């Protein structure tokens, strides 16, 4: 029963660290506690993988539900009171209404049905949980380490914002704890509890700076996720009312579509909100006001991944139903439209936000289709997206502190000005869209999964267009970074040690995971698929060899710069015959020296948010409507 202790450790240990964060007075204490806990959490997640390796899904018989369940219920109510208080203080009446509805539902459940629920085991771990635990444990921890340096600079730069780093790190670790709870919980009530904790944590982190914009955006995130929470509570109530005492995820998955489909659709709706699918994508874009490590955490290892985690878990229920297809189309259209909007964004963090929304859309589409190949693609997407996206956010954060801007156009020539950070960013971007890196492998897997699924050709067409747009907005960003501006000075200086450590580790991870991905697929994904679907998906040996060959080419080619070579004659770029200096200055009228400024194409007229977002909102709202109607039709009438 060793694994049960590890699971409990992973859930409780970050909580202990969080409490320490509250009392840590000195910076040095905080630094060491964070670093040591990060190492501990990362190591334990790896240890968990080793001890549970090759054992399939393991269920814990030991933990009794009741005292823990009661504690959770009390905590839930405390959270509700806290949200109620905030809602009243900030006069957010919709939040008040939502939290009241949700609490009433849960109290009603607790009083009426709680006794009849029988869950054989409350915690479990399988390959998929293990993969997510590794993402949370390693990437989440790295982000916390990075935050040490970042938040110090952050408060130096923003003197008006009250320094509440104690609270900040407290919430960060509670968040990680809740995420572990979420992926290990088998009891749906427990999943719900951790689900609500992540909602609260993200609310607190988004509103960290206490500016008006931050507070409003935090409440936006809150009300949408509370709406999702109500749907989740509805699923629990439905299960209670059905009276067959199904309250474990494992029981739900084997209980057949007649019982499972309605609660799955409701939880799926909560997942859509949490995964920031349209029409609920705006909370994730609004969350960009938070300090950058928060964005990194929300986008890569927590929050949105909780959303897609539950969708992928429930995928066997969605498979082959109209509900599943409606869900898949919500994801597919979100992918398409968010990719388009990303083209029009000049702010680096907003590009990252829309790219996250797009990729989550792809994962949702895979989960909705729910074939074994689609799930294979979905899990690959989750893994590779987490690595590349956290790397990109953290690199953007460091750059932002140095050049005081998040605009991509201001990153012109970053490879000259900040070569190390720019290299990290380029690795991150390459990881997002170029062969042979992870995200491309995943997209490839998604294409194959779609084309083999019923009506899959529609998804393939959507994916083809979406990925073409993806190429456009990533490549133009990459080009900006790699522009060589010969006049620029190096301003990189010394990057903070903790920031640097996190960046290098993540960049290393994106190479290593690409290299060992066949192993990951064979050893973790295939057993999971075999257990749940009875079939496995894989890439052929030849293709893997070719991918590794490409990876080596990409690794080796930049080294050619180290070779001794002739010095070539350098000329100024062509400027239509105008006298131009090497650093791109031309003489304007009245003898004024003008500097040439180059800006990317953003094509706002065609891809602007104002133009595309309404389409996405209406389309996806309609699809969600169809999803519920179809579910109700199948569940209630038939």
């Amino acid at each position, binding site marked *: 029963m060793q694994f049960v202790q590890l699971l409990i450790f992973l859930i409780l240990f970050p909580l202990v660290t969080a409490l320490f964060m509250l009392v840590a007075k000195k910076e040095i204490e905080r630094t060491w506690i964070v670093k040591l806990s990060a190492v501990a959490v990362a190591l334990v997640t790896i240890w968990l993988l080793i001890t549970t390796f090759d054992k399939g899904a393991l269920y814990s018989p030991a933990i009794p539900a009741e005292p823990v369940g009661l504690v959770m219920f009390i905590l839930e109510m405390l959270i509700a009171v806290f949200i109620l208080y905030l809602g009243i203080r900030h006069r957010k009446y919709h939040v008040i209404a939502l939290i009241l509805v949700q609490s009433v539902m849960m109290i009603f459940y607790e009083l009426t049905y709680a006794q009849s629920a029988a869950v054989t085991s409350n915690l479990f771990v399988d390959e998929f949980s293990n993969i997510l635990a590794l993402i949370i444990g390693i990437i989440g921890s790295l982000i916390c380490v990075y935050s040490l340096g970042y938040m110090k600079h952050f408060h130096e730069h923003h003197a008006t914002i009250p320094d509440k780093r104690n609270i900040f790190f407290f919430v960060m670790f509670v968040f990680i704890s809740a995420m572990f709870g979420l992926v290990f919980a088998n009891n749906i009530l427990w999943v719900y509890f951790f689900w609500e904790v992540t909602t609260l944590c993200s609310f607190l982190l988004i509103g960290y700076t206490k500016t008006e914009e931050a507070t409003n955006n935090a409440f936006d995130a809150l009300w949408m996720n509370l709406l999702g929470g109500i749907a989740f509570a509805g699923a629990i109530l439905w299960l209670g009312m059905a009276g067959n005492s199904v309250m474990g995820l494992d029981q739900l998955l084997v209980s057949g579509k007649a019982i499972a489909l309605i609660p799955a659709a409701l939880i799926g709706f909560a997942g859509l909100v949490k995964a920031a699918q349209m029409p609920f994508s705006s909370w994730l874009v609004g969350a960009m006001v938070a300090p950058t490590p928060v964005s990194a955490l929300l986008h890569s290892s927590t929050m949105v991944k909780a959303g897609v985690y539950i969708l992928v878990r429930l995928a066997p229920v969605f498979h082959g139903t109209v509900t599943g297809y409606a869900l898949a189309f919500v994801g597919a259209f979100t992918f398409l439209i968010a990719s388009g909007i990303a083209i029009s964004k000049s702010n680096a963090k907003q590009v990252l936000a829309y790219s996250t929304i797009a990729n989550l859309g792809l994962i949702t589409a895979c989960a909705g289709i729910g074939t074994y190949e689609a799930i294979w693609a979905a899990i690959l997407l989750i893994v590779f997206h987490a690595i590349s996206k956290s790397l990109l956010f953290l690199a953007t954060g460091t750059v932002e502190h140095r050049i005081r801007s998040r605009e991509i156009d201001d990153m*012109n*020539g970053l490879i000259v000005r900040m070569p190390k950070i720019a290299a990290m960013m380029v690795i991150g971007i390459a990881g997002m869209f*170029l*062969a*042979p890196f992870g995200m*491309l492998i995943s997209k*490839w897997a998604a*294409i*194959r999964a779609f*084309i*083999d*699924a*019923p*009506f*899959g*050709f529609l998804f*393939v*067409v959507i994916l*083809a*267009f979406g*990925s*073409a*747009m993806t*190429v*456009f907005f990533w*490549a*133009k960003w*990459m*080009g*900006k970074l*790699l*522009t*060589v*501006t*010969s006049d620029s000075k190096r301003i990189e200086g010394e990057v903070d040690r903790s920031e640097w450590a996190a960046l290098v580790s993540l960049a290393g991870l994106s190479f290593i995971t690409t290299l060992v991905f066949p192993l990951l697929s064979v050893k973790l994904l295939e057993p999971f698929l075999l257990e749940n679907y009875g079939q496995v998906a894989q890439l*052929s040996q*030849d*293709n893997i060899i*070719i991918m590794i060959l*490409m990876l080596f*080419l990409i690794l080796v*080619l*930049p080294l*050619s*710069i180290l070779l001794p070579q002739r010095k*070539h*004659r*350098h*000329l*100024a*770029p*062509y*400027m*239509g015959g105008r006298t131009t200096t090497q650093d*791109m200055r031309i003489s304007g009228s009245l003898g004024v020296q003008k500097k*040439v400024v*180059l800006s*990317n*194409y953003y094509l706002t007229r*065609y891809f602007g948010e104002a133009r595309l977002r309404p389409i996405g909102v209406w389309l996806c709202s309609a699809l969600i409507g169809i999803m519920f109607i179809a579910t109700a039709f199948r569940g209630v009438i038939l």
Partner: protein
Amino acid sequence: MINLVWGLVFVLLAPAIGGLIAGIDRKISARMQGRLGPSIFQPFWDVGKLFEKENAVVNETQIFYAICYVIFMAFTGALFFAGGDLLLVVFALTLAQIFLVLGAYSANSPYSYIGAERELLQIMAYEPMVILTAVGMYAATKSFNVSDIAATTTPVILLIPGIFLGFLYVLTIKLRKSPFDISMSHHAHQEIVKGVTTEFSGPSLGWIEITHWYETVFLLGFVWLFFGFSPVIAAIAVIVVYLFELFIDNTNARVKWQLAVKSSWAIAAVMGILNLAALYFLNGGIS
């Protein structure tokens, strides 16, 4: 299933064949324009001359990107002719193309900058159709492997005629022919400055020319796949398609990028969905 010999043959012979095609292309274009035209070996002399020139650069990284461009294009074609996975070929093609774009960006010059942005627009315009072509081949032959598709006895063209037409449309972009030679044209009359290649000169430009030859052979190989069931028809089809592209090239002026992207996307969407749907229902709902 991967045959390295064919890959190697491609890497060694494609520049010769591609250069020859370019020479014939210039000859026929000249005749269409009422000129005599140069010798069909002229492209070789041109490129040879480029390699004798001084390698003057705006910055050193340009050379690196030009070399990466040719290496990955050769890799793409080799993978294709060796019989590799069609989707992987498409992804490798994008990777190669991105290196050209990065080379243009790196120069920090307005002309090559606009060239780079336009090149990206072109990639965005053709990419959906190219992916759908690969998927269409799979839908028709049940395999993504070029070796299987080339050896099939199924008349692929009859199953995916719509996708073939769509592919023809974006082939104009890929071959850098008017009206879609938006980022870089081979015709002096279209071009103020040479778009994406503005800042490349000497050997670097030579490598980019050679890359173009590689790409031409690879793309004509793609056309061949539609007719793989009969080599004779395939050879005729490849020639006819190329002549057709030449004809279009010489009878059209460059259009704005908006039209290029919109029309390619419209054709990809309509042809892709209709053709794949037809195939899907023909197969009785099992893709």
